[in-house]
């Protein structure tokens, strides 16, 4: 749950990037960090193994400025996507206010995407969050660029059917390595999250 400090008129929101291993979550945060680093004081923290796999999480905090008199402090996290790190994933999801689900568009990743979404739903249930009950979640279908290299991709209709039929969340096609639609995804996630907190803000 967001930390809302009425006296200091400050709101802290936590958005977590979730999805199958190697799907591009860390790449999303790295691109965001590079685009905003000149205007934020904070640094990005990544805890990785000596390859580039996320071991614990990535963490990118920044101060968004004022909205309706409230200072909005945003914290973006990624979880490790690898199946074996579920304990860590669950821990990072504690207190989450919004989700970005980064799906991997490669055809071979179809089952992994579905399993990752199921795992997310299960982990959120642990925190009494019902993802189908107006919970802010954004879908990102990443690695669309791989089509140019002749790699078989899932078409958007298939991905929508697999992952978003029941949720009906806003979705973006993206190429995180090139930064395409990375910022729009983050913006949408932040605004959906703030709007879901509206009753507390009012």
């Amino acid at each position, binding site marked *: 749950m967001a930390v809302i400090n009425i006296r200091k008129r400050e709101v802290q929101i936590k958005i977590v990037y979730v999805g199958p291993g190697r799907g591009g979550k860390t790449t999303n945060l790295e691109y965001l960090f590079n*685009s905003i680093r000149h205007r934020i004081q904070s640094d990005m923290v990544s805890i990785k*193994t000596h390859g580039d796999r996320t071991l614990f999480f990535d963490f990118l905090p920044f101060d968004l400025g004022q*909205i309706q008199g409230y200072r909005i402090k945003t914290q973006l996290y990624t979880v490790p996507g690898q199946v074996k790190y579920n304990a860590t994933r669950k821990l990072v999801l504690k207190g989450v206010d919004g989700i970005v689900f980064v799906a991997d568009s490669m055809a071979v990743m179809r089952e992994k995407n579905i399993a990752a979404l199921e795992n997310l739903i299960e982990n959120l249930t642990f925190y009494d969050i019902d993802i189908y009950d107006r919970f802010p979640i954004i879908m990102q279908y990443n690695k669309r660029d791989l089509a140019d290299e002749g790699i078989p991709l899932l078409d958007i209709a298939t991905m929508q059917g697999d992952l978003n039929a029941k949720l009906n969340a806003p979705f973006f096609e993206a190429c995180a390595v090139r*930064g395409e*639609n990375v*910022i729009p995804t983050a913006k949408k996630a932040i605004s959906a999250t703030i*709007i879901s907190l509206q009753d507390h803000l009012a």
Partner: protein
Amino acid sequence: MDKTAKSKLVSDIESQLDDFFGDGLGDTSSPTPSLEKLKSAVLSIDWEITDACLSDMITETELLMSHFEEDPVTHALLRMLRGLGDYVRKRKARSHPDAIKRVMSVFANIETLINDTHLEKRQRKNIVAKEIQAFKKLKQQVESQKPPLRGAPSQAISTQTPADVAALLEHHKFKQAMNAVEERLGAEMKSLKAQVQSLQKQLAALRS
């Protein structure tokens, strides 16, 4: 919350997000090449001068140059950095000892120009003017270091005072000593790196 209050909230959020991230128009165009890569190339040169890190530095500099074509001040420093990189790549250990110092300084100032959006025009120009001065000085020193061209008038040699020659010798010896120290450090670094790697492997095994 009623409907109008909600739509006001939505538009407030959107404009704040646009202010913060930019209006998103830049999203589909090529992203700003990051200074990070250049920085790591420059830092590794400070550590050890290799062909690989020099050509990394030159490539990254050129990428940034095409991005900053419209900004003559930053562009000037980038050109200077590329020039210094070319020089060091050609001369290697024989390059002037101040050349790497200049590389560091020019890079630090490029970083300032790009990151510090509050700098006034005058301050930006000042930064570049100082670098140009230092660069010219280095250039003069480098030129006076060069052996006289074959067929050049012999007076070129005779103008060299014995003190100059002594300084040159000193300098040459100094270079040799430096090279020896560098070699030694390089070997030690290698063994340290290997140790760190094996520790990381152990740590990873413990964690999984």
